[in-house]
């Protein structure tokens, strides 16, 4: 392995490959900031360019774009509540409120450091655990995935404080209902499309996120006569863009980052799970682990609440390379595109890749770490300038948020039906937000909906309609036991608090 690592290092540290990582990170960050153009589009755009290089260089460029796009998505999430990438939706829960308090620079800096740390930790895990973890990821079956989705739903507790549990659950059901629109994944039977061809493929995730977050936020600001730039006006531009993180906040991050990186990496390793689920799960877990005072700050600009999803989504990005490189199974849509590119290079991924092509396997892993360092070096100095977006007057900022949301949807489908659908969902979401119906559970359920149905279907078909699959396997039982523990722990803590 040491020899492989050295080969990887020597390949990754060539001038050409360092330059490629830099280019990839830079373009990835810009593309990630634009709603609708996620890492998948960015990497797809890079494929024709990479065919001019050797496989290692091509993949290094694509890995740089991937990380850059995830980080760029966090920027629009934090500043505009418009997540450019699905994996950064959870970042907006605490990042956006923090930016609204005039701490945009600090929020971006926490995101940058957390991404860096998440990526660093997962690069280390990848270095030592990649070959053995591929076997673990294969041992996950449909019942385990279904149990994992249920565990993911416990993150809802984070949004159901102050007697909001039923409202959160109603939003979960609504999210699952929206996810059920379109063709059934197995039988291709159309559901809830009402003979409208535009709904056959279902509703796009980015559309729902843009409608319920960015557009509905913009409409709510106008409706309530709020000024999102009010806090920014109270502080100087230097203070707004300040990237200083104080000692207390650093202490919080030291605890959050290691645990969130583990969750992120493990979820990333599982094929089909991905950065979005990892970030939601890390957010929910973090809320369960912090003390009561800190818990109250969740959703209002908590350092832990911002650091956890940011760490997890970057860790998951690295984790998703495990099944791709060692098994040839893409862990996410983005790695599926990368897998296509890999096959195009004539490289056959599989358990023997790190023996047959060590320069490719190890150089990608090494370049990930170098990519993290470069991403940090590139982005930290830019934060004070990027944060100034919040100093743009409200009359210009709101139309620009609407413009980016609508354009993001339009470039995905070139169909005006999607624009109407987004406006419709945004109007309903704005009305629901007025009465404190939380939107994050809807998004979480929308992400999990398809996967949940698919895995429940497989489990029930395999067990002939019996629900015994829930306790038949030790792994399923362990995940379910964790879920039950979290739920009862929450109930116990609430009751204890009420008795006091």
């Amino acid at each position: 392995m040491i020899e492989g690592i050295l080969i990887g290092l020597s390949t990754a540290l060539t001038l050409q490959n360092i330059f490629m990582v830099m280019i990839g990170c830079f373009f990835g960050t810009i593309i990630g900031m634009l709603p609708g153009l996620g890492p998948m589009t960015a990497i797809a755009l890079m494929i024709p360019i990479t065919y001019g290089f050797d496989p290692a260089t091509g993949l290094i460029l694509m890995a740089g774009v991937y990380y850059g796009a995830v980080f760029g998505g966090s920027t629009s999430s934090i500043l505009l509540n418009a997540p450019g990438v699905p994996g950064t939706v959870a970042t907006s829960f605490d990042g956006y409120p923090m930016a609204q308090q005039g701490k945009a620079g600090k929020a971006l800096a926490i995101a940058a450091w957390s991404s860096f740390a998440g990526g660093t930790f997962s690069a280390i895990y990848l270095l030592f655990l990649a070959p053995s973890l591929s076997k673990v990821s294969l041992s996950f079956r449909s019942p385990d995935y279904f149990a994992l989705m249920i565990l993911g739903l416990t993150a809802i507790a984070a949004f159901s404080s102050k007697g909001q549990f039923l409202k959160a659950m109603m939003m979960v059901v609504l999210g699952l209902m929206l996810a059920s629109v379109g063709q059934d994944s197995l039988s291709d039977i159309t559901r809830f499309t009402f003979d409208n061809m535009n709904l056959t493929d279902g509703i796009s995730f980015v559309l729902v996120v843009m409608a319920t977050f960015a557009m509905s936020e913009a409409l709510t600001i106008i409706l309530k006569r709020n000024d999102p730039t009010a806090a920014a006006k109270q502080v100087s531009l230097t203070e707004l863009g300040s990237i200083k993180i104080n000692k207390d906040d650093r202490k919080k991050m030291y605890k959050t980052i290691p645990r969130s990186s583990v969750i992120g990496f493990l979820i990333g390793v599982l094929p089909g799970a991905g950065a979005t689920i990892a970030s939601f799960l890390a957010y929910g877990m973090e809320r369960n682990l912090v003390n009561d005072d800190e818990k109250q700050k969740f959703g209002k600009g908590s350092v832990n609440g911002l650091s956890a999803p940011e760490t997890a989504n970057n860790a998951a990005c690295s984790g998703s390379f495990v099944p791709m490189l060692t098994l040839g199974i893409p862990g996410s849509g983005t790695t599926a595109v990368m897998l296509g590119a890999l096959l195009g290079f004539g490289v056959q991924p599989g358990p023997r890749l790190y023996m047959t092509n060590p320069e490719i396997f190890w150089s990608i892993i090494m370049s990930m770490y170098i990519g993290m360092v470069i991403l940090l070096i590139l982005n930290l100095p830019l934060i004070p300038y990027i944060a100034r977006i919040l100093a743009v007057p409200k009359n210009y900022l709101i139309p620009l948020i609407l413009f980016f949301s609508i354009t993001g949807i339009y470039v995905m489908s070139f169909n005006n039906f999607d624009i109407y659908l987004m406006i419709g969902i945004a109007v309903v979401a704005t009305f629901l937000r007025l009465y404190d119906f939380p939107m994050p559970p809807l998004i979480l359920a929308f992400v999990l909906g398809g996967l949940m149905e698919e895995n429940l279907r497989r489990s029930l078909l395999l067990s002939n309609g019996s629900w015994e699959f829930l306790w038949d396997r030790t792994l399923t039982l362990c995940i379910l036991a964790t879920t039950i523990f979290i739920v009862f722990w929450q109930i116990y803590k609430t009751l204890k608090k009420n008795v006091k």
Partner: protein
Amino acid sequence: MNINTTKIISLLFFIFSALYLYTAYQIQVFAFDENAPFNAKTFPIYLGYAGLFFSGLKLILPDPETIKVEHRNLEYKKTAMLIIIAIIYGATILKVGYFLTTSFFLFGSYYFLGERRWLLMFLLSFPFVAAFMYLLHGVLEIYLRDPFLKLIGVMG
């Protein structure tokens, strides 16, 4: 039972769930799939019942923290104008093209939000959209249909 807007929303959600459940039962599945432990309508049926259950509970249970919204303080006019502009944008984008519709959408939005600095409004709409379009179409090679620019010979 105290009737407030949250309860009305819950009632609407209850009705929506009932309609969803009815539609779920109407989903046509293949004959060989009809008695399978899981088919295309199983999950939607579960969801319909879950919607009825949670909205029903919200309707019945007391609401200790009633949310009161002061409708008089809400800016309905500007919000409605923005929504109408967005709908017009959606209706014209395919026929007129990305450049003109997006520029007018931005210009109109600035105007209805109370902005009157004409030069700045212009700069942040037409040239801004042109630059953004160049980034998408020219640099990233994402095709943007634009009959207007095609007509005047700017786009091929």
